[in-house]
Every structure is written in C-alpha cells, then in structure tokens.
C-alpha cells in the first residue's frame, strides 16, 4: 500500500510536467504569435519584433516554458489579448472560478442525491419495469446532446408565452415555470440558476445511477451477502449494511472522473445561459485565439482533475480494506 502511494506521488510531477508542456507547446505554436493576435494581421513588422522581444517570445522554448511555469505558480498567467485587453488572466479566472465551482458542486450534490438512490433501487429490483425505465432514462440522459436540451428546455420553461399554431388552429398558453433567464447573474441559489444546474446535473445523475446499479448487482452476487442472508439477517440490514456500503465504494472513483463532465457542461451551459464562469471565458477564448486564457484554463482544469483523482486513489484503500493488503 505504501509502495502504491509512493509510486503515485512520484508519478504526479511527471503527469503535471507533461500536461503543462503539451498545453504550453500547443498554445505557443498553434494559434500563431500572440502579438499578431493582439495587434491584428496588418501590424508593423518592427512593432511585432519589438513587442515579441519585450514579451520574451524570442527566447528558446525551454526558457519560455520555465518562465511561464514560474509565473503561473505565482498566479500570473499572462494577459488577455483581445476581449479583455491587458487584463491579467489570473484575475479574470479568479473572478469566475467561484461561480463555476458553485454550479458544479450543486449539480454534483443533486446528481448524487438523485442518482445513487435510483441506481440502488434499480439494482435491487433488477429486470423489473422500474429497473428498465431507470436504465433507459439514464442512457438517454447520458447521450442526449445538451446543445439540443438547452434551447428546448429554456423555451418550454423560461417565460410565459402563447403557442399559436395557425395551421392547427388552437391556442395554448404555458406558464412561467422559471423566471426569465437573462440580464444579471444573481448567484447559484437564484431561480435563474435552476435550469442550468438541472442540465448540468443530468449527466451526473445518469452516470451515478448506472454505476450504483452495476455496483449493487455485483455486490448482491457476492458470497458475503449470501452469508449474511444465510445467517438470518433481516433483508433490510443485508441491503443497508452489507450491500449498499460496498456498492458505494466505486462511486468515489466515479466522483473523481465525473469532474471530466464538468468541462463540456461548463463550456456549453455557461456560454448558452450567459453565466459568468470560467466556462464562458474558455468558450470565448477557444474561438478567438486568446492563447494565454486557453493555456491557463486548460492547465488549471487538468491539474485540478489530476489532484482530484489522486485524492480518490488515496481514499480508496481507506474505504475498501481489501485493497490495503495488496
């Protein structure tokens, strides 16, 4: 076990090195010189050369990389080139990160409270109609494109309107289920946030349901569950103490990995609903060659993801004593 932790700890800087250097290299050589992005294509070549020197872009690659990492460790990720001209990227991100984290945490909490019980029951009543519908719905939820779900749900739920279908000749009014989603952002607990949070939590619900169901089915087939039943333990205790607790263990892994869903969710949902998180910042950056923002957002998300998964790795043996021995 100790060997495993040490191996992981040695591997950590290696992963961080590769993640940062790949991102940096792609950012540096991909979108073209940041000076050109900043000044436009028709800038004076002398100005470009002078600014490149000032920004240190004429240095060898490894010097630039080390400078970048050194600055990044102090929270300095360079400057915005186009939209937020000359504002430090570190501050742009720091302003937006709390919104994204709150949104995703809330979505994760909703995902767990809905997904885990659903999966538990589906696994318990396997092959029943309930199981069948939970499985089908979770498969739908995990594969339906959110770029389709967002405009449809927003249309259906956001404001009172009359649906007038002239060719069917009938009028139908559906009420305001949710306040209008526009204007200023008022925090995750306001009504405006309900729909984005629901859409982001759908993915979590689906993944957790499927994992919990698979976990329950696996655990219920184990010998120790049969033993518990054989010794006459009440079914409720068998489920709660022996089956459920063990089926919950793999969920920790999923929680670590499901941070991955955060990326697509944040990028697409935040941009569509105009939520000022790092997702919308990244959306703009990826389309407008804001190269410092692209690098910073990628590195921050990837590093957070690596640490989250390492934490899960360390937690696992604590939750599951069987792993400690190996």
């Amino acid at each position, binding site marked *: 076990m100790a060997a495993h932790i040490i191996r992981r700890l040695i*591997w950590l800087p*290696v*992963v961080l090195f*590769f*993640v940062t250097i*790949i*991102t940096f290299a*792609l*950012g540096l*050589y*991909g*979108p*073209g010189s940041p000076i050109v992005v900043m000044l436009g294509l028709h800038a004076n070549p002398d100005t470009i050369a002078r600014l490149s020197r000032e920004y240190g872009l004429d240095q060898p690659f490894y010097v630039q990389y080390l400078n970048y990492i050194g600055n990044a460790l102090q929270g300095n990720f360079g400057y915005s080139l186009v939209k937020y001209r000359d504002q430090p990227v570190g501050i742009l991100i720091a302003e937006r990160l709390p919104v994204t984290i709150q949104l995703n945490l809330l979505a994760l909490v909703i995902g767990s409270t809905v997904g885990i019980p659903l999966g538990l029951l589906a696994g318990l009543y396997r092959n029943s109609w309930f199981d069948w519908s939970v499985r*089908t719905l979770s*498969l*739908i939820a*995990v*594969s*339906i*494109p959110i*770029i*389709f779900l*967002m*405009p*449809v749900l*927003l*249309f259906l739920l*956001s*404001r009172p*309107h009359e*649906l*007038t*279908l002239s060719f069917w000749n009938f009028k139908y009014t559906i009420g305001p289920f949710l306040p209008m989603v526009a204007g200023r952002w008022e925090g995750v607990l306001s009504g405006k946030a309900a729909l984005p949070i629901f859409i982001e939590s759908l993915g979590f619900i689906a993944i957790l349901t499927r994992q919990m169901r698979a976990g329950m089915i696996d655990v219920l087939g184990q010998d120790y569950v049969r033993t518990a039943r054989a010794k006459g333990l009440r079914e409720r205790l068998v489920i709660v103490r022996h089956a459920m607790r063990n089926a919950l263990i793999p969920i920790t892994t999923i929680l670590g*990995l499901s*941070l*991955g*869903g*955060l*990326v*697509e969710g944040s*990028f*697409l949902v935040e941009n*569509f609903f105009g939520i000022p998180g790092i997702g919308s910042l990244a*959306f703009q950056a*990826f*389309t407008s*060659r804001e*190269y410092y923002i*692209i690098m910073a957002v*990628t590195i921050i*998300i*990837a590093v957070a*993801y*690596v640490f989250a998964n390492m934490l899960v790795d360390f937690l696992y043996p604590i939750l599951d004593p069987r792993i400690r021995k190996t």
Partner: protein
Amino acid sequence: MASASVSGVALPRKANLRAQSPWAQLFVRLARNLPALLGLIVVVLFFLTAIFAPMLAPYPYDKMNLDLIEKPPSATHWLGTDESGRDMLSRIIYGARSSAFVVLLVTFVNLLLGIPLGAIAGYFGGKIDNLIMRAADILFAFPGLLFTFLIAATLRPAVLTWARENGLGALAQSGYLDYAVVIIALGLIGWAGLARFVRGQVLAFKEREFVISAQASGVPTLQVIARHILPNALAPIIVSISMGMGFIALSEGYLSYLGIGLQPPNPSWGNIMADNAPRYWRQFPKMLWLVIAPGALFSLIVLAFSFLGDGLNEALNPEIDA
C-alpha cells in the same frame, strides 16, 4: 467477461435459436431487444443518408435564396429555410454526411492506433507496456473533451496558416482542412481508451492454454496475437466501438458548436445548432424547424448509437444478464 466471445457464448436456456453462425445468433438476440433493434435501424438509415446525401437532398447545402429567408415549412422546403434562405432539410442531410464521415474516420484512426498499441502493451508487458500505458495516462489527465478542444483550437489556425503559406489557399478555403483537424483532435484521444481495453483483454487470454500451445508449436508472435488472441476479444471491442461512435458524433457536434470544428458554410449539426439555437429559442414556430428539427435528429443518432451499443453489450455478454 473473460469468457465472453462471439464463438464461445452459451445459448440462453429459454432461447430456441435455430441460427447456426455466431453472427446470426447475435442478430437474433439483438432483434429481441426492441430499443437496440430501433437503434440499429436508425444507425443504418443514418449511414445510408450520409452515402446518398447528394441524391436525397433537394438543394445544395449552401445555396442561399435571399427571397426566402426564415420561411416556414412548405411543399418546396419541407423543413423551411434558415436566416440565409438555405434549405434546412438539405443542411440536415449533408450534416448527417459530415457526421458520418467524421465518425467513420475517427473510429478507423482509433482502431489503427488503439488495437496494435493495446495488444503490444498487453502481450509483451515490461517497458513497452509501461511506456504505452503512461502515454495513455497522460491523455487521461485531461478531463472529458478538454484535450480535444485544446487540439482543435490550437491546430486549426496553425494548419490553415500552413496551408496558405504553401500555396494551398484553395484547400484552406474549402473547409476540408476542418475535417482533418476534427479527425486528428478526436483520433488523438480515442485510441487511449481502446488501447487500455484491448490490453486488458490480451492480458486475460495471454496465459490460456490455447495461446500457450500456439506459442509452443512455433506460431509467429504476430499470428498468435492476430489469430488466436484478438478474435476472442472481438465481442467487447465491437461493443466499445459502437458506444464510441455515438461519443464521436456527440463530440463532433460539440466541437462545431464551439466554433472549433467544422465551420459554416460546411454543414454540421453542431454549427447549425450554434447558428440557430441562441437566435431562435424564444420564437415558437421558427424554433420548431430551425432548432428542434436539426437538434432532434442529432439527438436521435447519438441515442441510436448508445442503445445499439447497450444492446450489443447484452447480446454478446449473456452471462451478465443471468
């Protein structure tokens, strides 16, 4: 899982399968699963639409008609026209073509990289295994589609600049390079999952008697892997490919929606949604043909791949469904 193979599956007790070949058995089992069967039909229709797009589409996908802007569905334009007077049905049909093209090529790239790398890692073990799997781990360090987004966003300008500077301006203009960028961006990440999966399968079979006896009778290593090990791992590989195809279609849509995949006027369901969804979501009848029609078809295809994959998984691993 280990014993799940196309040729070695035990028939379910109740089943009265007269079919002889394992593929026919597979099909019979799949046909009993309604969602999977529907998924299969939709997937087949999807690829047929993609192949015959020029014959099926009533108009060219980029033909603008400024007299017919945002017109509702009619006899001449079944799904109406968009903000440039382009026929929505034609754009959706050609969008299917873009999507199918990307799905097939990316799957091909994934198989080409993933199966050999995974088989080598699993069969030989040791240093080479370590090298391949650590490379996969580094790709897995980027969550979700982040690496794909990064590659597409940075590669596109680089590739376009390169093409213009090398006298390929027309190619850069045509949009074919966008397909290349999307396929590279998705191909570069997809192999890792498949390689990890194939490696596990190879490890499971490596020590089995039939492999050892093949090795002992002097069968060359390449043949041992290709003839004796991989065919046994075929079933789970097929399942993972089928699931992967839906994911690739979805990713292509998201990339194009973000503006770093296929660019307009090239049709992609992603860029059709990006063009229309933020603009029309509150206008009811326009919303129906400009947002819901492409979006619903996009969803249908991704769902079809998922249900087909799920059904294949059950049909190929009957022991799970005890």
